[in-house]
């Protein structure tokens, strides 16, 4: 199996979110970046498992400038064979999807795996867009994938339950919890990642359909109202009369 995995940069999950330049930009000062967890834990690891079981290759693809290289090295340390970086700022989901779709089309992959969403934009957009641009089947929010030759049996989350489906390669899949378990790179993996190939590719012209004009933080929560554990009836009263949720 020749597998392409989309890897995106995301701020560490413990990051305190702040904005700068009149709330027009994300404040990167002091921010630790990680591989977007859904891309790494589920899409990348499942891709590596498939390769380990039946041979083939795992290539990662990232749209970004040089600052994403450490993130790409991390994905290589986890076990990807090589990496491609499309040398452009990621502008919007359609722009990113166009870059990935174009590269994937030219290089003939059996599957394109991505995380179900990034933890910074929470869009869940790129996977479906890549599939549509490439005219491939799209399996969203997949939690399990088994392969038998070129036939995949996949379980995905749907509204109100789970759906099991069969599809032949090639396809595009977005991965969710359950697909694989996180792998912590070992020292050998980290050393090997330094010498793995990271190809930098020029972007293609692609439209941007949307742009972020500004950011805002949610209003501060007021202080918590504490209720005496000996008087839980007061909580029921507050939920009924004040909060009006029961």
């Amino acid at each position, binding site marked *: 199996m020749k597998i392409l995995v989309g890897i995106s940069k995301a*701020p560490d*999950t*413990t*990051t305190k979110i702040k904005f700068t330049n009149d709330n027009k930009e994300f404040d990167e000062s002091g921010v630790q970046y990680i591989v977007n*967890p*859904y891309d790494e834990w589920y899409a990348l690891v499942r891709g590596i498992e498939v390769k380990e079981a039946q041979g083939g290759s795992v290539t990662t693809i990232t749209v970004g400038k040089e600052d994403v290289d450490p993130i790409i090295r991390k994905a290589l340390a986890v076990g990807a064979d090589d990496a491609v970086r499309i040398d452009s700022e990621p502008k919007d989901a*359609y722009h990113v*999807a166009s870059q990935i779709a174009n590269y994937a089309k030219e290089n003939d992959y059996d599957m394109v795996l991505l995380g179900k*969403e990034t*933890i*910074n*934009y*929470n869009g*869940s*957009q790129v*996977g*479906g*867009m890549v*599939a*549509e*641009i490439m005219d491939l*089947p799209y399996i*969203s*929010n997949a939690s399990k994938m088994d392969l038998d030759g070129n036939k995949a*049996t996949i379980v995905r989350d*749907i*509204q*109100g*339950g789970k*759906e*099991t*489906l*069969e*599809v032949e390669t090639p*396809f595009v899949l977005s991965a969710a*919890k359950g697909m694989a378990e996180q792998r912590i790179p070992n020292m050998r993996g980290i050393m090997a990642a330094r010498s793995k190939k990271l190809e930098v590719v020029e972007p293609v012209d692609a*439209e*941007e*359909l*949307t*742009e*972020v004009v500004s*950011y*805002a*933080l*949610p209003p501060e*929560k007021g202080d*918590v109202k*504490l*209720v005496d*554990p000996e008087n*839980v*009836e007061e*909580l*029921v009263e507050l*939920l*009924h009369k004040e*909060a009006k*949720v*029961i």
Partner: protein
Amino acid sequence: MAVLAFVDTQEGKISKSSYEVVSYAAKVADKEGGEAVAITYGDVDNGDLEALGKYGAKKVLVNKSVTNMLPTKLAKLTAAAAEQEGADIIVFAQDFTGKSVAPILSAKLKAGLVSGAVDYPDTSDGFVVKKNVFSGKAFAMYKVNTEKKVISILPNSVGKEEVGGTAQVEEFSADLGDSRITVTNVEKANTDGGIPLTEADLVVSAGRGLKGPENWGMIEEFAKNLGAATACSRPVSDVGWRPHHEHVGQTGIAIRPNLYIAVGISGAIQHLAGVNGSKVIVVINTDPEAPFFKAADYGIVGDAFEVVPKLNKAIEAFQAEN
């Protein structure tokens, strides 16, 4: 011009968030000068479809021959409906169906997509929609620069409004092509007859503070009495005390109920990311320094094993009176 509302169904029943989608589309249509039209599929009762008029739909297009949720087909169906109705704005719910269909439709129509919208479009300077980013820790204003636009709204964020009326129902068919995907099985979420977590207005959640899976009986009983769904924190699902589908948080599922009661959960930032859209948060924890209290509306500092049974009794008494 029309605003198209994508109405999702499961087993012939209209999903809860679809009423919000219709209501949202109707409000946008009012503002933009047009009508709200719904597109839906599945074996739905015509009376249920006419009743979408209550939330502002003037017309409902239904394709009863499409019964599964394959995203490519649903995107084609929606694109055909948008073309017939001359709809430039198409509204989804940002649930599993919306997340799979809206991006395909967006790429197909080259229509800018705002996913996870939490407010109505602001058209004072272009077309700008506020959406959730950083897993609920912030908002971003997204400007859509294309003539056609797709918006998927976060469930339980804008609400729905009854305006009265009955929708006209029309059968609708379109060339949906052949699917390269074969669905072999559909399994309803195992909620033991309870309420699916993503649909629940009230949620009772518990974490490591409960000390072991054998102690969940009181949580389940309390949730049942309250009419709530049950959820849990990540460590608890990781060690197998509770099923994975109950895990709420950054890497599990994000929920936006009216009431979220957290028992014995410290409130790590990753957990908060999955629940910070809740309208009201109640935290019960022995540790007064638990970070969750800072995100809570109401709190009880106390031992879950004493507080929960008491609270359960208080809820029973309250329900007997009301």
